């Protein structure tokens, strides 16, 4: 009884959040009416101004690259980070290390906009000193992903398309989540790195993937952690009897096959294939980009067999 009540409150709160954020979109982007100039506020709270939409863009995180392609500005990316791998045509774009940026190297591509997600203030300052506009986005929730999309869209002159994409993202997530909340919550284990099987890295409160798990009607095994990313005790993982595993793949050959080789992990290794999200689908859940809807769909199908094949 109480459980049902809690669930209703939760769904209610989620819906309120979404509606509240809908109005936020436009406030984040104050596109000037005179001419083409655009001005946004990024996730560091800094104002980013462009006299006209960006033509040459350096995008240094997989989610920023995906967003640029999704709003139709993909061909303007002149340099990307090494981890970006979607859509497939990004492979042809020059790549650099997204964590250790060299301002000089970036400037060599004469960009008019640099998009980051891991903010390193001194390097941002170095780029700004060269007269390059820098915007940093580090979305931690679906709402922030939508804001990120709108802001990036505005910066490259695709504001309308971006607003449409953000709205669709929200309504898709809302619809999926509403479907998923009707069922009992099951435990979901997320593995970010299992190199040490006694204490693998997982996600906790404040992480993007935990929010998606909640939206999908699951409960994160790492919900008691104190940080978004931490090492968790294997005993906690197995004793919470996860019914779904999300395995992010950092090198070929990991994933479900690796679990089978780990002593003491039979519970997870014997999960049916449908209850494991791995391979190319796992990054959809940890990458805060436009494809998060697909990730959410995969997670819902893994969690709720009743919905399999019926998720829109």
């Amino acid at each position, binding site marked *: 009884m109480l459980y049902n009540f809690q669930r209703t409150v939760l769904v209610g709160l989620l819906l309120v959040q979404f509606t509240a954020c809908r109005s936020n979109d436009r406030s984040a982007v104050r596109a000037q009416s005179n001419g083409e100039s655009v001005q946004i506020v990024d996730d560091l709270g800094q104002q980013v101004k462009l006299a006209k939409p960006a033509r040459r863009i350096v995008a240094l995180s997989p989610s920023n690259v995906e967003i640029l392609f999704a709003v139709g500005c993909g061909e303007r990316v002149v340099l990307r980070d090494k981890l970006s791998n979607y859509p497939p045509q990004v492979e042809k774009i020059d790549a650099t290390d997204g*964590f*250790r940026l060299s301002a000089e190297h970036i400037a060599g591509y004469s960009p008019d906009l640099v998009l980051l997600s891991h903010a390193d203030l001194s390097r941002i300052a170095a780029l700004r000193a060269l007269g390059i506009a820098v915007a940093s986005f580090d979305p931690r929730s679906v709402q922030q992903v939508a804001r990120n999309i709108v802001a990036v869209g505005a910066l490259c002159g695709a504001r309308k398309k971006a607003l449409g994409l953000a709205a669709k993202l929200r309504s898709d997530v809302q619809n999926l989540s509403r479907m998923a909340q009707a069922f009992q919550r099951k435990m979901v284990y997320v593995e970010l*790195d299992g*190199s*040490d*099987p*006694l*204490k693998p890295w997982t996600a906790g409160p404040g992480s993007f993937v935990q929010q998606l798990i909640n939206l999908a009607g699951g409960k994160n095994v*790492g919900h*008691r*952690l*104190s*940080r978004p990313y*931490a*090492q*968790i*005790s*294997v*005993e*906690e993982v*197995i*004793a*919470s009897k996860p019914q779904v595993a999300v395995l992010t793949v*950092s*090198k070929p050959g990991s994933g479900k096959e690796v679990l089978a080789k780990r*002593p*003491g992990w*039979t*519970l997870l290794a014997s999960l049916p294939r449908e209850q494991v999200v791995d391979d190319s689908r796992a990054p959809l859940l940890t990458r805060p980009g436009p494809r998060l809807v697909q990730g959410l769909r995969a997670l819902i199908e893994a969690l709720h067999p009743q919905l399999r094949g019926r998720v829109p």
Partner: protein
Amino acid sequence: MRGKVSYLIAFIILLLACWLAMGLGSHQGQIRFDAAWLFQLDQADELQRNVLLIWRGPRVIAALLVGAALAMAGLLLQGVTRNPLADPYLLGISGGAGLAVVLFRGLAIFQGADWWLTPIVALLGATLANFAVLYLSRGSGGRVTVLGLILGGVVINAFCAALMSFMLARFDPFHLRVTTLWLAGGISFAPWTQLLVVGAFVFAAWLYLRMRAHQLNAFALGGAGAKSVGVDSERLLLRSALLASFLAAIGVSLAGLLGYVGLIVPHVVRLVVGRDFRRTLTLSAVLGASLLLLADTAARLAFAPEELPVGVLTAIMGCPVLLILLRAQLKGKR
């Protein structure tokens, strides 16, 4: 008399540490270890069996072995350098072992190497670093000086740390992520075969040292004193350095760069039972094992279900001890 009592107390501490480490888990006390399982393993459920045989059991053994190895290495180094500040971590021996392993993994000479390969590589690095420090620390007349040891350790440590940072920066972070974690010092999973082999080696090292205890005692008397009882100081120093490198390499290959265990334990032991190597050896091994096991259990439980690297805890405990020792040494010299 005092010897027997201290042995008794040390073994009680050891048993207590084992009991705590086996009995306490992170999962809100849901998995309780009960000694009765040992006798009816076939009836235990899977979770209980995992706790005993895979998660806590091997980890407890690994912690015990590493703790004993590091404490013995520290005691040995302190004995042959006649200096209470010697410790495999401070002298850069662990750093050398660490660097060797990072180079080995980073250059991926042997992809998917077996568990026995890492200790061999670690041993090579440890030995090189150890002899480098001993060479650097030789003052006039071939005597190892305090200043020389500390400075030699600083230099070797700094060099190894720089090269390790270079490797981590140069090579794919995902490839070496394991290594990064491992550098912080932490006891991770080890297969039973490895534990068995390492256990045999640690025991052999203890036995060897126990038999040579009188020589080490004579060595402590100083060059002339040692000679009068027929101890070849030079050879003893060489052998001891090799053995200490070997013990440090065992520690590094099972638990990464773990500092200060080898410093604290022998010192405490000497405070209680004096300088007789026959006693300090066994007591250091037993107490080193208990200390590391307790520290690892604390690292497991302090922020459960989150895990801390145990190296952080040993450093927090060890640094004040180091400061006090250093202070006493400098005062004594004046």
